């Protein structure tokens, strides 16, 4: 049995988690382009898509572009899956938040298919999304994502996707 690790101060743990999360998100140009941010409560992630004019698809209504919504939900699904993969390495200390070189992070899961269900038109306001990993095996994962705006209970879009998991140990 390995010796018990000394208990780390809560700030050290939080800083490491936030640094790794930032490295994971900042490394993807398309996430930066859309302006998606991630908020963290323990291991739970909430994606936030702050409103900007570039996201509009129907200028008359106006409504968010269906493609922007699809991309937002897909980014949320991939990052939530990736976060689950990274979490274990991070908690063991194998991944250090101090020098989070994107090259140190595991490869991203690849989308096999993604189906978006548009429930309401997206309003010109901030949008939020959370993903639930329904199944995550060695090779495949199935993820469901919920997107909402003003009211958590009134989803404006939801999606299901299947993903190919990255192979471990490069």
């Amino acid at each position, binding site marked *: 049995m390995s010796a018990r690790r000394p208990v780390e101060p809560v700030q050290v743990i939080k800083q490491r988690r936030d640094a790794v999360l930032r490295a994971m998100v900042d490394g993807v140009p398309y996430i930066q382009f859309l302006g998606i941010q991630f908020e963290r409560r323990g291991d739970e992630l909430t994606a936030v898509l702050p409103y900007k004019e570039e996201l*509009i698809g129907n200028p008359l209504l106006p409504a968010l572009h269906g493609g*922007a919504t699809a*991309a937002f939900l897909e980014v949320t699904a991939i990052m939530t899956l990736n976060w689950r993969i990274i979490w274990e390495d991070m908690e063991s200390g194998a991944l250090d938040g101090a020098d989070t070189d994107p090259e140190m992070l595991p*490869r991203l899961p690849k989308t096999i298919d993604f189906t*978006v269900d548009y429930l309401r038109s997206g309003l010109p306001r901030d949008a939020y999304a959370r993903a639930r990993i329904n199944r995550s095996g060695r090779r495949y994962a199935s993820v469901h994502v919920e997107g909402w705006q003003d009211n958590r209970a009134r989803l404006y879009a939801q999606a299901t996707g299947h993903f190919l998991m990255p192979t471990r140990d490069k």
Partner: protein
Amino acid sequence: MADKNTAAHRFIDALPHARALGMHVETMHDGEVSLSMPYADHLVGDPRTGVVHGGAVSALMDTCCGAAVMTPPKNTGSTATIDLRIEYLRAATPGQTIIAKASCYHVTRSVAFVRATAMDADEDNPVAMATGTFTVEGKA
């Protein structure tokens, strides 16, 4: 023909998100639409490979399918996506323009059914396939 093309270009230019992604109308007639999206650094989803993010391909597919619903002879006044499913067959080759071709193959009074394919320079091996359903509006 020139007029039609101008109208088609105006259609894309009126969509801020399509403009932000650099989309261009290639062809647009008879319920068939072809849109191109040149490779750009800000579309990258995996910095280690330089491959375009699936979300950008989704946005291109969604725009292309929506345009196919709105183009003559179906010619609905406006449309919204009900459902869109995308299959990612392979990674798009970094540096290459992605071209989507959508066909609106059936329209009822309230629903339009669309299929689309996305390709890069290797036209024999599609990058992604999509099937979608869209609302039919302004056709009462």
